[in-house]
């Protein structure tokens, strides 16, 4: 007969408010196999845990059921308490009386009855629980950071400074990301490049950081502590060991009129190019789609001019394989382009631009050297309209979320504009001004009060062209919805921040979850904001949701802290033993597994391997499936798929589940 102890927690009044905890403890004491049953106000508190420990010792309990909050909250707490008292921690189960019962029902006898049922189910399970031992797996202490924007840079530096090797992979030819494109930063108006470029150089020079630019993650296999990454280093067309970064090739290239990605299409670049002068590494890339040599088979001017002979037209993509212990995903975001908005001209008007394009206009290193000249004819803009929430907070446009950074950068844009064009008119259409943050609201007030930016609360219904000038039609909702019409030289749309292209494919490669807008999902919105649901993969920056520089940097440091803490452990990694196991039976069957391996492709974690069962003389008896316990995440997909019920999940076995159902 089992000796099971039941401990009912009141959770203050969270549970006892609607559930009669005393009656639950009393009636559960009568379940066969239960020898001890008590209730207490806070089971998770120190005295509460002492009650559990003493009961285990005094009553020689061989199983524990705790009726309290969600296991996500306190399973570790209670299992540790049991372990301290000498009970195998996996003989302790939690019934979620709070989320599954007291919070969702009115106070009534039926609610208490349900609580009793929830306990009874778990008593039957615990009777069949097996003592389990944690799984130990070796660990590679090397981090992979995907994305070399400010978040990736910060995470790489923090991990590298903690003494662990880091591989930083960046898709573009240079690290720096969107921050390198910005002119000034709010709320201090310091120059973005001035604070960023030293960090970029630090990355390049750090002995613990290996930098792969113009490279992408090809695949990631394995599990926490034991990932295998394949990185595709795209053909740059340059021998990096020979290139000195003199830049002669970029001046001689005959193809010069390619829209510059770095300048958001407002400037032009040659076919062999460095995205911007401060690029790290300062090594050009041959754009094979536009290079005359690649298109027509002859040209080769750059190869002729190169003083070190570093040009390699026939260079091929290289695949780099690396063993990795943890991954930080910092792939950033993108903004909607103007062609997304039919009411604002479908991208037809060159003088309707995005906020990111305005950054390039305002940047001293930008295509206009920092002068606010409109793209169509290069005239200094005398009147500029800024439209906040272009696409954001608009369910009809499919982006019901707030892009968070636009209120602040719009204020910054208007301010920068007024600083550059003193007599110019700056108008801002906004829905609400969301300026939460240190010195943020003061910054917006400064734009309104000191720089006299005209803030209009209302949305813009239409932008059209009339006599060579843009007309912005909107309404002022603070003045009784009066229609407003403003003639503007330039319109800046604060377009919604969206997930970077390729985010969905990357998430699937990494096996991390993502939301409806393709932003990567954190494990818990409040308590695990940098973790993903996949162990060993962490998030940093705007790939999780749109965020500003301080927030991206904080999250990056947070993720780096998590990685460092993981690497700071012993050599081996401990994992919960809730993994799938293929059964073994007596000869002549040896296992009921028939080796159909239909489970192999069903496993989302590639944890199914082949195992040969051999006799004493080495003869092959049978080939069966085997679960790699390091890779298995215990999802149970294989268990459900297996026709012969040959796979079982430790801690959630078929027998345990069946007993739970029968106890209802």
């Amino acid at each position: 007969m089992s000796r099971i102890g039941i401990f009912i927690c009141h959770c203050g009044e969270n549970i006892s408010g609607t559930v009669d905890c005393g009656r639950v403890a009393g009636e559960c004491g009568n379940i066969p196999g239960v020898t001890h049953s008590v209730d207490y106000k806070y089971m998770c508190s120190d005295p509460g845990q002492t009650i559990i420990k003493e009961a285990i010792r005094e009553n020689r309990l061989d199983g524990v059921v705790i009726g309290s909050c969600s296991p996500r909250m306190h399973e570790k707490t209670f299992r540790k308490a049991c372990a301290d008292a000498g009970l195998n921690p996996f003989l302790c189960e939690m019934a979620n009386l709070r989320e599954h019962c007291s919070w969702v029902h009115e106070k009534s006898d039926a609610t208490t009855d349900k609580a009793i049922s929830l306990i009874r189910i778990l008593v039957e399970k615990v009777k069949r629980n097996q003592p389990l031992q944690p799984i130990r797996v070796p660990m590679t202490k090397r981090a992979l950071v995907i994305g070399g924007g400010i978040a990736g840079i910060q995470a790489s530096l923090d991990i590298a400074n903690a003494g662990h090797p880091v591989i930083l992979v960046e898709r573009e030819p240079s690290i720096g990301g969107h921050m390198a494109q910005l002119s000034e930063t709010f709320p201090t108006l310091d120059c973005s490049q001035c604070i960023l470029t030293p960090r970029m150089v630090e990355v390049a020079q750090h002995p613990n950081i290996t930098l792969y630019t113009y490279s992408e993650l090809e695949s990631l296999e394995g599990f926490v502590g034991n990932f295998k990454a394949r990185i595709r280093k795209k053909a740059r067309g340059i021998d990096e060991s020979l290139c000195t970064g003199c830049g002669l090739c970029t001046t001689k290239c005959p193809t010069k009129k390619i829209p510059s990605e770095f300048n958001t299409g407002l400037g032009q670049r040659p076919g062999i190019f460095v995205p911007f002068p401060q690029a790290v590494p300062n090594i050009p890339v041959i754009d094979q789609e536009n290079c005359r040599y690649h298109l027509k088979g002859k040209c080769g001017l750059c190869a002729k001019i190169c003083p070190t002979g570093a040009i390699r037209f026939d260079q091929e993509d290289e695949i780099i394989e690396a063993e990795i212990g943890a991954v930080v995903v910092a792939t950033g975001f993108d903004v909607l382009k103007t062609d997304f908005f039919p009411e604002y001209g479908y991208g037809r008007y060159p003088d309707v631009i995005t906020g990111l394009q305005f950054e390039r206009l305002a940047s001293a290193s930008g295509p206009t050297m920092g002068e606010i000249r409109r793209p169509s004819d290069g005239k200094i803009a005398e009147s500029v309209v800024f439209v906040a929430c272009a696409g954001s907070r608009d369910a009809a446009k499919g982006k019901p979320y707030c892009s968070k950074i636009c209120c602040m950068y719009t204020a910054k844009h208007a301010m920068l504009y007024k600083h550059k064009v003193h007599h110019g008119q700056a108008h801002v259409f906004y829905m609400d001004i969301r300026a939460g943050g240190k010195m943020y609201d003061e910054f917006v007030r400064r734009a309104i009060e000191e720089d006299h930016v005209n803030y209009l609360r209302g949305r813009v219904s239409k932008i059209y062209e009339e006599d060579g000038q843009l007309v912005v039609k909107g309404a002022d909702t603070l003045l009784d919805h009066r229609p407003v019409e403003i003639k503007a030289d330039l319109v800046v749309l604060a377009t919604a921040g969206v997930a970077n292209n390729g985010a969905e494919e990357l998430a699937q490669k990494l096996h991390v979850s993502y939301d409806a807008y393709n932003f990567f999902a954190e494990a818990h919105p409040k308590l695990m904001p940098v973790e993903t649901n996949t162990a060993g993969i962490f998030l940093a920056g705007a790939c999780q949701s749109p965020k500003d520089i301080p927030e991206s940097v904080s999250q990056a440091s947070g993720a780096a802290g998590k990685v460092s803490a993981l690497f700071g452990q012993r050599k081996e990694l401990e994992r919960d033993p809730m993994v799938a196991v293929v059964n073994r039976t007596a000869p002549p069957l040896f296992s009921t597994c028939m080796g159909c391996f239909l489970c192999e492709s069903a496993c989302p974690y590639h944890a199914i391997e082949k195992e040969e069962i051999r006799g004493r003389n080495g003869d092959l008896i049978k080939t069966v499936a085997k679960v790699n316990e390091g890779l298995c995440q215990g999802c149970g997909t294989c268990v459900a798929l297996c026709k012969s019920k040959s796979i079982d999940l430790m801690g959630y076995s078929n027998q345990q589940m069946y007993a739970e159902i029968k106890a209802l």
Partner: protein
Amino acid sequence: MTEQLQQQARKLLDDQEVNLIIGYGEGSARAVRAVFVRSPEETEKLILDERCTANLAVYLNKKEIRALGKPAIVARPSVQRSIVQLAVENQLANGDITVIGIDDDGTLTLFSDLDKLGEHVLAQAPLRGDSPIASSGSRSASSEASSSGEASSSPESSASTESPHSPESPHSPEMDEERVRKLSSLPMEERFAFWMSEFAECLKCYACRAACPLCYCERCTVDCNQPQWVSVPAHPLGNLEWHVMRAMHLAGRCTECGACYDACPVDIPLHLLTQKMHDNMEEAFGTSSGEKKDKPVFPLNSFRPDDKEDFFR
């Protein structure tokens, strides 16, 4: 045809390429039975005529047969499909068997490479285009028309007037298709009532399981008693559980040979269930079992990023 087969079989045994021929031979009372030929002299037992349609692939997984050495198997198109599906499920590997393929037009082809067999099957007419399957010892269909109140216009109700187990009342793919179509058009309650009345006859003899080449598990779920998922006695609930489980386990795998129906002593048209599952799979995923493409995909255990459902992302 028979002569050609016997010659081929004798040659295979003479050359010691195989140890055993699995084929058809005369049984009692004009019935056909499986024969296992182990010496060249015995090859004259082999016959091949229109009665020889039972799915011999079922013997390939039997331990007793495997112990006899490498077999060659006489394989009609439906058997070929079963073999291809078994290869997809890693139950047969190249070199395990030699296939004596008999096509509908009587052409005899030898396959020692299962990939070649896969290509051959793929090049044949699609599943439903096969010749009448499993007509040997076939039976009157217990008519769903009668239980659903529909009158005798359906093909099987005319067949039901004939004596049971007469070879003159074969069920053909066309007839089966028609029956599935008719059943599908019924309201859910009537459909359920039809199947419950059919399952009421079930004796739980598991002849359907024994006849099915794809029911190769050494321990069937129904025999698993820790815990006892499916109740053993032949009562309505247990019977329903068994038949639902059987159909689900064959979803996307059944090659529609009809052997289960032929084996059923109480004439439950249980092959219609797997046929319907097959239709559903083909409709939803565009796949057909028993066909080996470049990379065999079993839709119920694979994931494609462009899947139209997004609930599991």
